[in-house]
């Protein structure tokens, strides 16, 4: 039976959302081509996770080993090389996440398996796959095809595919032996380090005024801060503002920062890369201010203002102050 394998991604005892998204997409593809869907789960003491996965797949391919207690590209590559070589799935789906980005390209190269990374669309005509990717920070989309015959590997962007509820699958538990030995590793896990806790918790704010690289210089931040103060908003930002050390890390919105759900999110001079949007798409209302009418942020906003932020923000501040007095 033809099989699509999804790699379950989990960290510290919890399955990550991209797993369910891949299972949903994988199942739709499998149904379209008369294939079955298997989910590979690697870990130590992950029986409960296996139970949770069962209804979403024809089988859970479980590999338990003490040496898989935490993720390590080296152990993952060894174990998955054996699994894929033996089962020959038609397609392997892995998240394009901090974990997947660390090992999937190496695994594919090792297996000489054609790979397409960071896909936001996967369509199949028979066995021929057509993929959608983004280029230039999300400003254009591209249709991509495989030049070489399968089996293929695709890494999938988090949040790109919805989770569609369907009738339960049998979810047979298949325990497989681990390919690991006591041989030493060249890459050794030491510990996790938690994000530092800052003074301001942007996840609790009702109104966030968020700045991006469009702010150009640290000296321009007070201007936006005044506007934020005028509306009782809290200042947050995109990643480059933190990278440049203009604002502390705890103000960063996005996949590698915080996920926020304010009533109103005002994005100023932020282009709208998917890593940013992932952190703010839960906002009630999004207002985007950008001088580029094609900026991807406008497709994540309810209201858009095409303007130079240096001109419009001071006017916004004055107007709000004026109208509040009335």
């Amino acid at each position, binding site marked *: 039976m033809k099989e699509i394998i999804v790699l379950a991604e989990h960290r510290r005892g919890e399955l990550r959302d991209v797993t369910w998204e891949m299972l949903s997409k994988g199942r739709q593809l499998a149904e379209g081509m008369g294939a079955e869907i298997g989910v590979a789960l690697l870990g130590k003491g992950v029986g409960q996770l296996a139970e949770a996965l069962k209804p979403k797949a024809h089988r859970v391919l479980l590999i338990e080993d003490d040496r898989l207690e935490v993720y390590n590209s080296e152990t993952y590559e060894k174990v998955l090389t054996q699994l894929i070589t033996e089962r020959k799935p038609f397609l392997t789906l892995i998240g394009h996440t901090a974990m997947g980005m660390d090992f999937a390209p190496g695994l594919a190269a090792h297996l000489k398996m054609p790979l397409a990374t960071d896909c936001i669309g996967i369509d199949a005509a028979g066995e021929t796959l057509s993929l959608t990717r983004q280029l230039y920070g999300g400003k254009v989309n591209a249709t991509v095809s495989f030049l070489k015959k399968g089996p293929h590997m695709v890494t999938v962007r988090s949040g790109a595919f919805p989770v569609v509820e369907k009738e339960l699958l049998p979810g047979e538990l298949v325990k497989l032996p681990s390919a690991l030995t006591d041989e030493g590793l060249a890459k050794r*896990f030491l510990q996790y380090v938690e994000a530092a806790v800052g003074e301001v918790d942007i996840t609790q704010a009702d109104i966030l005024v968020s700045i991006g690289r469009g702010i150009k210089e640290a000296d321009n931040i007070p201007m936006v801060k005044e506007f934020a103060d005028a509306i009782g908003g809290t200042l947050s930002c995109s990643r480059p503002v933190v990278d440049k050390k203009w604002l502390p890390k705890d103000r960063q919105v996005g996949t590698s920062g915080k996920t926020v759900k304010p009533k109103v999110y005002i994005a100023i001079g932020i282009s709208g890369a998917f890593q940013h949007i992932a952190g703010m798409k839960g906002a009630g209302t999004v207002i985007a201010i950008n001088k580029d009418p094609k900026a991807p942020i406008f497709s994540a906003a309810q209201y858009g203002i095409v303007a130079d932020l240096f001109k419009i923000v001071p006017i*916004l501040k004055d107007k709000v102050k004026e109208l509040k007095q009335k």
Partner: protein
Amino acid sequence: MNIIVCIKRVPETADADVIIGKSGKDIDKSGLAFDLNEWDSYAIEEAILLKEKLGGTVTVLSLGGEDSNESLRKCLAMGADDAIRLTDPAFEGSDGGVIAKILAGAIQKIPYDLVLTGTQAEDDGYGQVGVVLAELLGIPHAALVNRLEAQDKKVTIHRELEGGLEEVFEIDLPAVLTIQTGINEPRYVSIMGIRKVAKKEIKTFGTSDLNLKAEDVGLSGSDIQLEKIFLPPVGEGAEMLEGKPEEIASKVFDILKDKGGLA
């Protein structure tokens, strides 16, 4: 410590009006400014910081046309010792896997302890080349590195995960690390600084220098091919607030009162 840094010259598109080119397979780059890939500017800075601390050399490698010399020179001005450009008409159409293969061919000719790449390129966004490179060189690696300490024969690195969490690994050298933005503050290079290295030789290598076969590079060696590009569907899109700035401001006030509980 001898360090190799792979860098790419990319068009600056965040601020630009992006137009689809005639071929339908790429954007029209004629009016665009180009610069060093953002992630690579952090990679080269990290290499120079290590060199300043531990000694050794920094070699920069770039696969690209003659224009790439500009970015290679920028790296030399920042403090790199040598620059090599990989170029051949046969490289045209190479995907991420093939780019890694070509870079690996060049790296095998140079003694090294550490290879740094960016986490991803701003243009194609594969997020692939560094990790494939490690596989082809047969050495360990880590992606998304946002902190790095080098000891004698190993490095301790932090990998950035989702939500601000990090994981710490110890890795034996030689290794490949893909560098994440924010790991350092890339130094500024002045026009004077670039002028100083304007005459420095940039070696070039092609397919035959790298013991590669023409059919293994370019489109014929690639896994994937770009069929067409298009502007993303706008979806529901935003309601655009138009009019005089004061009118827009009044509308924003109304929205804030309506949706944000502005008192």
